[in-house]
């Protein structure tokens, strides 16, 4: 039984407030030809679905909707697959309730 045919993360992120640091993403994916197991895991585990496969089969990150949980850091920073830091001060998600 599949879990999430009907769930649209984009709709959930729409509720949130963000200040996007245009042109300065706080997460970068290391250039690769074929994604590692760690990178592929991020496609499913990222709660904001920031990681997507592009047409040539590589994993790409778009941090605009990132909720800064750090799950991708726990999985893919140790292997060097991603570079991870917090957004610059004041940027990123702004929780109204938290």
């Amino acid at each position, binding site marked *: 039984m599949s*879990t999430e045919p009907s769930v649209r993360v984009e709709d959930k992120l729409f509720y949130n407030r963000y200040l996007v640091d245009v042109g300065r993403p706080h997460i970068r994916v290391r250039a690769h030809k074929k994604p590692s197991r760690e990178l592929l895991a991020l496609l499913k*585990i990222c709660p904001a679905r920031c990681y997507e496969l592009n047409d040539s089969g590589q994993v790409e990150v778009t941090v605009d909707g990132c909720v800064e*949980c750090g799950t991708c850091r726990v999985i893919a920073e140790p292997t060097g697959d991603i570079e991870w830091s917090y957004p610059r001060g004041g940027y990123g998600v702004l929780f109204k*309730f*938290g």
Partner: protein
Amino acid sequence: MIEERFDAIVVGAGMAGNAAALTMANRGMKVLQLERGEYSGSKNVQGAILYADMLEKLIPDFRQDAPLERHLVEQRFWLMDDRSHVGLHYRSEDFNEERPNRYTIIRAQFDKWLSSKVREAGVTVLFETTATELARDSYGRVVGVHTDRLDGEIRADVVVLAEGVNGVLGTRAGLRERPKPDKVALAVKEMHFLPRETIEARFNIKGDEGVVIEAAGTISRGMTGMGFIYANKECVSLGIGCLVADFRRTAHTPYGLLDRFKQHPSVAPLIEGSEVKEYAAHLIPEGGYKAIPKLYGEGWVVVGDAAQLNNAIHREGSNLAMTSGRIAAEAICELKSRGLPMTAEHLALYKRLLDRSFVVKDLKKYRDMPTLLHTNSHNFFLTYPQLISRAMQNYVRVDGTPKAEKQKITVKSFVNARSRIGLFSDAVRFARAWR
């Protein structure tokens, strides 16, 4: 560059950082606090339940103006399978007391309030400032921090790392390891808004009374995890979290799990017709006693979630954060008043004091629980909830089957699923980890 020198720099304005900063400022220390968010709370996520005792130790009269939601009069534990839940509920009029013990809160609002107290006490707080690295001298001693807003380093006698579960300063400097996938849970949460009267009717409460529901079972689909539903004044906090290692192994998505939890027949009526106003995610330290890193060193201490101080069994974290922040601050003030330098040898006082507090004692008590639950997650979160649910249904359904036969069916279902030896050893292992 800030030329000014501080007695202490606190990195982070969550529960631990605010407690530490407030305690030090109240004792006359010159404190700088750094927070990457626009305000204290804008990056902080919690269920959230506030424990009055630990806050009273910081601000005795907090009830006068703190933004509290509801005081808890009822705790519900739900063991769930896909269509049912078996509940253990505790409700008492004793909780309608003058100084209630537990409250639901909304972190962004609460932290803003707590931060205002920190500033009133004289702490210099720099918001929208991300600390990027610790500054160290040629001996490797921590002497301050670098930030993304000011050139150069800011110096202080001691740095209090209250940077949260995912803090980067301490790990980048090699003071502790990055959290491991089997030692942290990923929790996702939504805020569901409903009219006040609707919440009170659905949760069977009145006035400022509140209810907490903690739920485990097939909702986590065999992963080590739990769901929660907290009644606030005009909204319901609803979320679910599981170990990162389990999410990775099963490839379930966090939002898929959350939506299934919301659709559960026991949950859906509670939030029907609500308006969702926020979706958040956060890591929760779950490793317990064995995951506590080194808590102090030359010129630094680590507190709160950054030190993995979270009691996963009792769902307590913010109070451990507040207490560790306060105790670290008290140790620092003690050294300062005795004119002692902030060396590792002297800062060991923080650990000695923390070891004597409920924080470390409680974590020690449950030191074997995280491993037990993780290595047996299939049994504890799938098999048993299903067995117990079937047993309950068998017990209450009246269909002409003689009771003795019903009893036999139930016993047999348990033995078939886990075997006599399996049942016995599960019980023994659970009891051992609990005691």
